Structures are given as structure tokens and as C-alpha cells.
């Protein structure tokens, strides 16, 4: 399978190459920060981004779901880019999302962008979800909680070898807690060197970088200079930009 297995607080998890998290023991698939309709949200303000981000994300979800056949699917928050995003879906996209929501039990963790997903999607809506050794929530908690799995931060890292570098989304984990990469087609990213991410981890942590066909392990702490990147239209939002731009 296209994924990397890791242990988190005693649970065996698979980091899927798509950026989703697969929990085989519970047949549960987790997507974080899908940010549906981010494109149209920018179009409303005059930036006509290609209106294909939602279908791209839905198609990718469909493929991962088909691969794992989960019993439970979780959105770890910010499934919709803003409160009205669901209203802007067109008929095809609405149908696609409906189909996805009917094939499994859905758990919607509320995020800062989507306090309440639309009721027609069904499923359970919670702020936090505990199962086995794991705690799922959108934003990482202020206090350390073993087994916490969060999203919200959109982690990314830059890998540099022989003068060439690649910037990719990644999972970040240290055996006790984990942050998931954003799944959305237009979702920006935050670099590991940003305190918002590395301050979550007390000691060493690993970055698991999303490649085309597999997940690669990369250095986490101690490599901040190569991971460093400030907000730019070429890269992704800084912490500050994320809070102001991506908050409703």
C-alpha cells in the first residue's frame, strides 16, 4: 500500500500518500483541511482562480476511499473554506459529495472555517473525537495531550539536496502527537520552522513528505534553514497570513 506505517500513542497508523490518514484497526480514514470552494471564495473578491479545486479534491478523496473502503470517514475540520461554501457547490459536486457521504459513517470535526457543515451531509458533528489511544481535533491543543491528531496548520517542508529543493506537504509526528497535511487542492502551507508547528514537539520529531507515489521520511527539527520559507504568492501563507486570511 502507498503509505508509511507509524506508531502513535500505541496505535498503528498508515500515512497515505494522498495526505489522508488511515487507521486500519478501526477502518477509519481521516482527511484534514479540504477547504472546498476556496477558489470561488477568492473569485468573490475579484481573483478568478480556476473553479476546479472542489472537484479535484473530491476526486482525490474518491480515489483514496475506493482504495481503503473505510467504515468511518472523518473530516478533521475546515472541510469547507467558508460558511457559505456548501451553497456554492454546483449540482455535480453536490452529487459527488453526497455519494461520498453515503458510503460510510461520517464524523465532521468542526473547524475555524466551517463551524457547522451543512445538515444535508448527515453524519456526526463534534468538536473533538476520542477513540482508542487517539484524540482527534481541528486545532492542536495548548496543553500536551498524548495521542492528539490535529490539522489546521497545513504543514509543509522543503527538502534540499545538492542545491535543488522541493517543497511538499507533510505529516509531522513524534510518536505522541501528529499534525496532518492539508488535503485541499488550493490549501496553502506552513513551514516546519514556524514555531506554530515545531513548538508543538518537545524533542525530536519526524516529517513525512508526500511524494507522487509514496511517503518519504525527512528531517524534522534541526534543519530549519532549509525548511524555511516565508509567505509568498509562490509559496504559502505564513502563520499570520493563515490566521487572517483563512479565518472566516
Amino acid at each position, binding site marked *: 500500500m502507498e503509505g508509511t506505517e507509524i506508531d502513535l500513542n500505541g496505535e498503528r497508523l498508515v500515512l497515505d500518500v494522498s495526505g489522508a490518514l488511515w487507521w486500519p484497526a478501526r477502518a477509519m480514514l481521516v482527511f484534514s483541511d479540504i477547504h472546498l470552494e476556496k477558489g470561488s471564495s477568492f473569485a468573490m473578491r475579484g481573483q478568478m*482562480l480556476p473553479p476546479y479545486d472542489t472537484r479535484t479534491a473530491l476526486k482525490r478523496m474518491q480515489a483514496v476511499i475506493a482504495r481503503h473502503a473505510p467504515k468511518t470517514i472523518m473530516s478533521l475540520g475546515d472541510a469547507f473554506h467558508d460558511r457559505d461554501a456548501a451553497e456554492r457547490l454546483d449540482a455535480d459536486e453536490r452529487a459527488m459529495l453526497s455519494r461520498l457521504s453515503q458510503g460510510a459513517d461520517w464524523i465532521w470535526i468542526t473547524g475555524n472555517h466551517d463551524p457547522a457543515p451543512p445538515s444535508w451531509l448527515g453524519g456526526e458533528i463534534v468538536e473533538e473525537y476520542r477513540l482508542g489511544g487517539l484524540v482527534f481535533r481541528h486545532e492542536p491543543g495548548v496543553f500536551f495531550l498524548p495521542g492528539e491528531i490535529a490539522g489546521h496548520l497545513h504543514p509543509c517542508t522543503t*527538502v*534540499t*539536496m545538492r*542545491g535543488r529543493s522541493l517543497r511538499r506537504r507533510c505529516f509531522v509526528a513524534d510518536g505522541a502527537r501528529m499534525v496532518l497535511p492539508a488535503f485541499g487542492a488550493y*490549501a496553502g502551507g506552513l513551514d516546519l520552522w514556524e514555531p506554530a508547528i515545531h513548538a508543538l514537539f518537545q524533542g525530536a520529531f519526524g516529517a513525512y513528505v508526500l511524494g507522487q507515489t509514496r511517503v*518519504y*521520511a525527512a528531517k524534522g527539527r534541526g534543519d530549519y534553514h532549509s525548511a524555511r520559507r516565508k509567505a509568498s504568492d509562490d509559496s504559502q501563507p505564513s502563520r*499570520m*497570513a493563515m490566521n487572517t486570511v483563512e479565518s472566516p
Partner: protein
Amino acid sequence: MLARAEDTSLLPQRFAAWFAARGWAPRAHQLALIEHAMRGESVLLVAPTGGGKTLAGFLPSLIDLARRPPRRPGMPGQRALHTLYISPLKALAVDVARNLEAPVAEMGLPIRIETRTGDTSASKRQRQKTLPPDILLTTPEQLALLIASREAPRLFENLKAVVLDELHALYNSKRGDLLALGLARLRTLAPAHRTVGLSATVADPKPLIDFMGGGELVRGLAGAAPRISILASDTYVPWAGHIARYAMADVLEAIKRAKTSLVFVNTRANAERTFQELWRLNTDNLAIALHHGSLAPAQRRKVESAMTRGDLRAVVCTSTLDLGIDWGAVDNVICIGAPKGAARLVQRIGRANHRLDEPSQALLVPSNRFEVLECEAARDAVMANELDGERLRVGGLDVLAQHVLGSACSKPFDADKLFAEVTSASPYAHLSREDFDKVVDFVATGGYALKRYDRYARLRKTPEGKWRVSHPRVAQQYRMNVGVIVEDPMIDIRLQAKGRPTGAGGRVLGQMEEYFVEQLAPGDTFVFAGDVLRFEGMHEDAAYVSRTHDPEAQVPSYNGGKFPLSTFLAQRVREMVSKPETWHVFPDPVNEWLRIQEWRSVIPQPGQLLVETFPRGSKEYLVCYPFEGRLAHQTLGMLLTRRLERLRMRPLGFSANEYALAIWALRDMGGLNMDRLFDEDMLGDDLDAWLAESNLYKRTFRNCAIIAGLIERRFPGKEKTGRQVTFSSDLIYDVLREHEPDHILLRATYEDAATGLLDIARLSEMLARVKSRIVTRRLDRVSPLAVPALLEISKEMVAGEAHEDILREAEESLIADAMRIDEKSCERGRN
């Protein structure tokens, strides 16, 4: 030079007296311009530097303005903008304004002259729109802003003349596209105005005249032929490399002999290195300064004013000083490295000596063997008065999108009329109506096949069928985004205060491309702003550095200033190489090098492409010599390695320079059908597949998306406020390419890349030219001609783009690090 007496009748008394008082006589071309202006004709003046070109451009306007009836006292002047001057450099606009003030003041003319640049205060800019000066000096970007303003029709209705300075540097570029569209608008707003183009010597003035919308050609008197010498040693000429370290003592001698020298190099990195080398030898402490685009503006201004005062003996500089303010004192130009083009060489030589009757003095310093050939070819071309013709670009659709939005910002436009106006601009003469409509649609709603954004449209149709902006915010966005220069993201380089922690503030030395800084680890050293610096770390948005004396400094590998060898010069070099009877002009080592090549392999004839294959070490090599410039070779390298991969040759990498491309692989490539390997069809699917993931291409997309207004421009410091809309343009590219590969913006990107970063146009011409004219040689070892290309392999980073391989490599090195058992850990293990 004395003009004929009857000509001076063209000059009003006041002007003739002014010339006489200064002991000058008007030059023939100055009078010719007055004559044409009196007939209301537009003129392109082609003249070398130092011919009083700028004054010639303004004289008719000054004469016309001097004839106006005086304003009656007490009456508020109904003054209107008379002459608009446009320069590619704002510094030049300011300088020309200053130089124009002198004759105006000395003749006591009631003429108001003002500049308008990005530095002009908002209140003054506002006032200029309602109470314009008689003569306004500005840049193409400011013109775009002016014509997009509501006041444009009134501001320009009485415009009499437009003066376009350094037109040769503008007309065939994206900025030229923007300017051409602006000029087309001016022709609509003020149909009676005339245009004066001022240009350095060009191979073909026709495209410049077309750009101006038509006109007469006036040639200034040619100056004395320059004296060009080539520094070449009969004992040693380096095989490869781009810093002529071997020649630095001679360069310093040349600086000593002259009053003031400009030392041109081709890249910022080379500027740094050359500056270092010169100072290592400069025991006399000659005042030698450094000037390039990454230095802090204050630093550059300091060097420029020291130069103006005559305090400097030499400035090491890049193309930043190709154009600009005249420095009378410069009497010697030294060009280190390849001249790249004959026109560029003429331009640079022209920076020395602004008196026409004296020959300019120039010294060419080749830094390797191929450059010796290039220097000789360039000198021959200049002495024969032959210059490179330029491939004419087609107007960018991204620039057009910007202009369409600007037009709507001024007042609602009629699509038919705007189309007619746009196609009157020469870069857009062949624009189809269909493409124009697509661009309008793009500006309005993004132009997607999936019509999702109609309700958010930026442009809407009025009941009369005109297009207007839907919201004042749109006009505001336009103003923030105007212009076609998109800089790489840059990072401030700050000098860390001694004994203070990183991030505690420090003087800004300049800026470097973010991608370069990203590759530095604390402790790495590099040369910047003439100092060897040690990277200490990042803090907020700046890189902190300290001074150090590491002799093995890594040097910034900026992209800045890497223009390719011109097609014209490449042609001459190829011809020179093909004729052994001309080799005697070369220094002995070069001559010997070519003779051995002739004996060991073959000297390709013009029109042929030589491909050599040979083993070396544990690898197999394929080296070809298209002489088409680094960019085209790099693209060729990308495409060939793809093909070789498919042919199971197991290619490992390639390196490209201006003349050759070397590919190495695990398998012997000698048995391949080279005609098939180099077939033009590589520009089909292979190119397409590569473009999907090419970083160079994605960067081009980002630039086009910004210019077209899809993505907002990023302003220095602004991102810190967090208001900046941020997302990755790469993600946008991926999604758009997947869902709408024919989208107008992707076409704009392709057209841009084809003549820009990827040089596909040139590659395609080359592949067509060498078709069935490929000469192959299978050798048992490396050929003399291949040596420079192979030597660059160790020096240059393996050209190519970051691939997923590096993720795997990084992972492997991480594992190796983790698993390594060295002595220390063994000891620890035992304890």
C-alpha cells in the same frame, strides 16, 4: 561639427543664440528633427551615444512651447500636457529632466518640466493629472497608470509629442508590449500628436518605426570606429569557467592606464568574484567600486554619485549600467567574459567616451577558449558594422489582459473599438479577434469553460454594450498590480551587529533571491556586496550574516543577468570555427585546441550539428555543439534525457553551457540513431510531459498569472500584515492544466516560455536546421572540444530540476546518518 547656414534658419533666434553662446552648433540630425516636427511627422532617430540625441528629441517641443503666447497675468493657465517623455529607467527620466532644465533656464523659457515615477508623492501625482506640466518625464508603468485613470482623456487631449528614449532597449520586451498598448491609446486620445523615438544603433530600424506607429528614419552621424582589443595570452587560455582570474593583473593594469573604467561582467556572481580578485591585487588602493542589481539602492546611488564626481577609477558592474546616465569621464570599457551579442557590445563600448569624433576604447577579456572565439566574432561584427537582429516577440496575452482591465478602469470601453486600437500596436498586429475576446472574458470572469463566476464578474456590460468595471475595488486592484516586471521573491541580507544575537537588527547590505538563501546552512560562506560573508541564520524576514575571511567562499549563484548568446553571434562563431584558414588570429592554445579537435574528431561545418560519444571513467558521454545558448541547451538536455531514459540508456545527468550540451549515462549511446534522437518531434509529447512538472515553467506561469491579474502581486513587507492573499501558484497551475489545458493563461505562459526561460523557439529552429545534417563521431576518449563542457560538470550544479529523486536521496542520507556507527558512537556504546 558645423551645420550648414541655411539649416540654422530652422532655429528661432533665442535658440540659435543659446547654441552660439555655448560655442556649439546644432547638429544635422537635431535640425532634421525640427524640420520633421514642423511637418508634424514622427521620427526615429538612430544615433550612437554622445550625439546630442536627447536634446534633439526635445528641441522641437521647446521651440513649439517657446512660441506659445504668454499667459495673461491673473488668468489661471489653461495649460495642457505638451510633451510626454518615456524612459526605461526612472533614474534616466530624472537625469534627463535635470539636463533639460539647463537650456530652459538659460534661454528663459516659460516651460514647466516635471518627472513622474514611483517615487513621486501621491499628492503631486494627483495634481499632475489635473494641472499637468508642459513636459512630463516618466516610465512605461506610469504611463499605463495615467491612461487607466478617469482623467486620461482630458489630460492627453492636447498632447503634441511623445519622446521614447532608449527605444532599442524597450520595444522588443514585455515592457515594450505594455508601452505599445499605451501608445495606441495615446493615438486614440490625441490623434494629432507626433512621436520621436531615440535609439542606439540597431541592425534593423523597421520594427522600431512600426512600434512607434510609423514615422521617418533619421540617422545621426556615426562616431569614430571603436578601438577594440582582445586580451589573450599565447601561453595560457583557460579551458572552462567564467571568471578570468588569469587575466586580472592585466585588467588592473588597464584600469591603471585609463582615467575611469567600466568593467562589465555578465552575472552578479561574476561581478562579486571579479571585484574580489581585483582587490586582492589592488595594492595601490585604486578606487574600484561594485555595482549590481542586488545591492541596496542606497549603496548603488553612492557608487553612481562617486562616479559622477569622478572619484572612482573603475566600477565593476553588470547590465544594470548598460543603459542610463552618461558619465563623461569614462574613457575605457573592459568586458570580462563573453560579449553574448554584437549589439550589446556596441552598447557597452558606447558607455565610454561621449565625444563622437574620438574612438571609444574597449578591452575584451575572454574567460575561456570558447569565449575567445566569441570575442573575435563579436569584434569582427562590430568593426563590419553588423549587429544582431532580434527575434520579434509577439505581444503577451498576459500584458493584454492587464491593459484591457486598465482600459475599463479609465472608462467603459467598446470591444470593437478597443480591438481596433490594440491591433494598431505592432506587437498585437496579428492578434485574432477570438483571442482578444478570450482575453476580455478572462479579465471579466476568469474565462473558464465552467462558467461559475459570472456573478462575481470584474467587468460587466452596460446597457449600451460597453464593458465597465463592476466595483471600484477592481480599479484599486489594477493600480496595485500594474507593470510587467515580476521579481523573484527576495530576502534582505543584514549585517549582524558584532556581539549581538542574530535578529537583533543590522544594516541591510542588499537582497538575494530567496531560493539561494534557502540553500544556505548557518556557517556557510558566500561573497556578497564585495565582502566574504558568513550566514548566521534567518530571523523574521531577513538573512543575518557576519564578515569573515574564508578564502573558499561559496559564491551566490544568482540567476541575474544570464542572457544567452545571440543567434547572430552564434552563427558567426560557428562559421569561424568551420574555417581553419581563419584560426591564425587566435592565440596559440586556442589554435592548437581546434587543430587537435580536427585531427581527433571533426570540425563541424556551418549548418551541421556535431554529436560525439565516448566513454570516460565509469560513464558514457554524449556531447553535442549546437551553439544556441544555455537556455535552449538546458531545454534540449531535459528533453533528450527523457528520450534516453525511454531508450534505456540510463542517463544520469547533463550540463549545458552557451556552446555545448553534455549528457552522461550508464550505457553507450554511440549506437543510437542520432537523427531520430534529435528529431523535432521531441517538441511534442516529450515537451508537454516535461512542462507539466518543470519548475522553470511553473515560474513562468506565476509571472504570467501575476501580470494578467489572476494572482496579486506581492509587495515587500506587505505579506507581514497578513492581508496578502496567499496560495501556491503551483497548485493553481496543476489544477488548471488538468481541467483546462487550453486556457488562455496557459497559452500566454507557453508563448512566454517559448521565447524566454526555455527558449523553445530557438531550439525548434535549431532542430529544423540540423535535420539530416547531424555528424556523429564515436570516440575512444574525450575530444578537445568536449573538455570545456565536461569541466563545467564539476563546477556547475548538475543542471536539471528537483525531482522526486531528491526526496528519496534525502531519506537515504537520513537513514545513513541514523545508522552510521562511527568511533565516537562506538566509544559511547562501550561506556
